[in-house]
């Protein structure tokens, strides 16, 4: 019996090695082809667009970097500020939505309803062009950040509410059983875990925000789309300018998706 089993195992060993090697080869091949197709598509798209636009190389080399550097800088600044304020609003909103206090709860649900129920574009117009009529004048960037923060804060309120509710009840009970007062239970035990739960969703919203921030170009914030339109118009190269702007947004999205994935993996490490 034992001898027979041993010889079977001896026969199996080289087959196992071959299977492992074949699987590794297939995986490598898949990745190579995958990358090659990506590179090819990017090149075809880029070259095709450039040729189709008939843009002068001068324009791309001189005006391109202006759009990229100045525009992308403001895009990142506006988006980053807005996501921070939106997150703070969302935490407050979520605590309100979960509050036993009817005033806090009503105020929070009113806020969410109002800012989800009206278009972001309208909110931007309202803050920049509407409010000055009643004496509230905000410069372009603060106005844009305010609108984006309020709008995204409303959506993210619901995300945070779900995140807080997704923290197991036992966590709260264990903290309370240790005599930790209610406020501290929320701040030290529940919220940190809720944040870990909602990080993927916040990351998604940040990436959406990068692109929605282009809406504030209409109130003269010098971000990517605004720069592209202005430079493209004055150089009579609107198509090439828009292509460059599109490439900026796309690249930013890819970069932040990469960081988001890494962050998620890091946060998942401490998971139960």
């Amino acid at each position, binding site marked *: 019996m034992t001898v027979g089993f041993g010889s079977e195992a001896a026969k199996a060993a080289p087959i196992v090695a071959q299977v492992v090697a074949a699987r590794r080869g297939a995986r490598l091949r898949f990745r190579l082809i995958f990358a090659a197709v990506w590179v090819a598509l990017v090149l075809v798209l880029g070259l095709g667009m450039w040729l189709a636009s008939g843009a002068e190389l001068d324009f791309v080399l001189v005006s391109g970097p202006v759009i990229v550097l100045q525009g992308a800088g403001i895009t990142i600044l506006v988006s980053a500020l807005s996501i921070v304020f939106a997150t703070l609003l969302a935490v407050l909103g979520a605590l309100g939505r979960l509050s*036993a206090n009817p005033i806090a709860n009503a105020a929070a649900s009113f806020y969410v309803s109002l800012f989800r129920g009206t278009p972001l574009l309208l909110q931007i117009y309202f803050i920049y062009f509407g409010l000055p009529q009643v004496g509230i004048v905000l410069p372009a960037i603060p106005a844009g950040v305010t609108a984006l923060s309020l709008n995204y804060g409303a959506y993210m309120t619901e995300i945070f509410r779900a995140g807080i509710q997704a923290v*197991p009840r*036992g*966590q709260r*009970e*264990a*903290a*309370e*059983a*240790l*005599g*930790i*007062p*209610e406020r*501290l239970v929320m701040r*030290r*035990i529940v919220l*940190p*875990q809720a944040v*870990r739960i909602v990080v993927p969703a916040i990351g998604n919203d940040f990436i959406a925000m990068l692109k929605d921030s282009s809406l504030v170009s209409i109130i003269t914030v010098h971000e990517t789309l605004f720069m592209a339109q202005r430079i493209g118009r004055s150089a009579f190269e609107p198509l090439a300018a828009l292509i460059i702007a599109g490439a900026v947004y796309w690249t930013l999205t890819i970069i932040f998706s990469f960081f988001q994935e890494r962050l998620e993996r890091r946060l998942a*490490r*401490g*998971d*139960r």
Partner: protein
Amino acid sequence: MTDSPLPDLGTRPAPSGSGYGDALPAHLGDVMVKLEGIEKYFSDNHVLRGVNLEVRQREAVMLIGRSGSGKTTLLRCINFLEEPTVGWVEVDGLRLQADPLQARSRQHQEQIRQMRLRAGMLFQDFNLFPHMSVLANCIEAPTRVRGIARDEAVSTAEGFLDKVGLLEKRDEYPARLSGGQKQRVAIARALCMEPKVLLFDEPTSALDPELIGEVLRVMEDLAHEGTTMIVVTHELHFAREAADRVVFMEDGVVIEEGPPEQMLDEPREEGTKRFLRRFLTP
């Protein structure tokens, strides 16, 4: 048992006698936990029907009974994770009357918190804080609730982690621990608050069989060192080894109580016999 200060609500009477008869074992101290006339409704569901229970200092009491008999609810009533519908709870001289109508009042909440500082609790699923290291789990409440200096809290925590055999895991996160290790950390975390009584809610029910022993050993050591503890458990062998008294519950009342040998080998009540028969024959 003392008389309930409440009118009889038509429930079955608890059996007379403290479980020890007249001869209280010498190592037991004064009354540490006293439950009087505990009733608990979950909406219409009458889960506890007038429970009286006294636990003395250094006593280890094991609550046994079928699932649904109310033993876990009773345990959770002691630190008001469930507010009893009526009744009195007393732990280490702090007496608190159940008052579900005032459950949210600030004063009542503060009294409940004081009660919880006296009673450490262990859960079936451990409930370690997953975003904190083992050490941080242990010093969170001592530093933030008791106001103990960090250095002191750390050395206390290290002492208790050593006691449960997990000092070398102090910087690990709970996700990296086995179930048995998690429960032992949870025990150390509870001990760090220096409670007067430990409440165990089926502490080994969520564990793989091979991990149960390490947790029971820690609990047995605690019992033999004179820790006052109330344990809801299905581990009858453990009850025999570590209990001073076994309490059998059925349908929300205490049916019978007594020393483990008497309760497990020669129960008097029909309900206890039925439970043990079903439990001991596989």
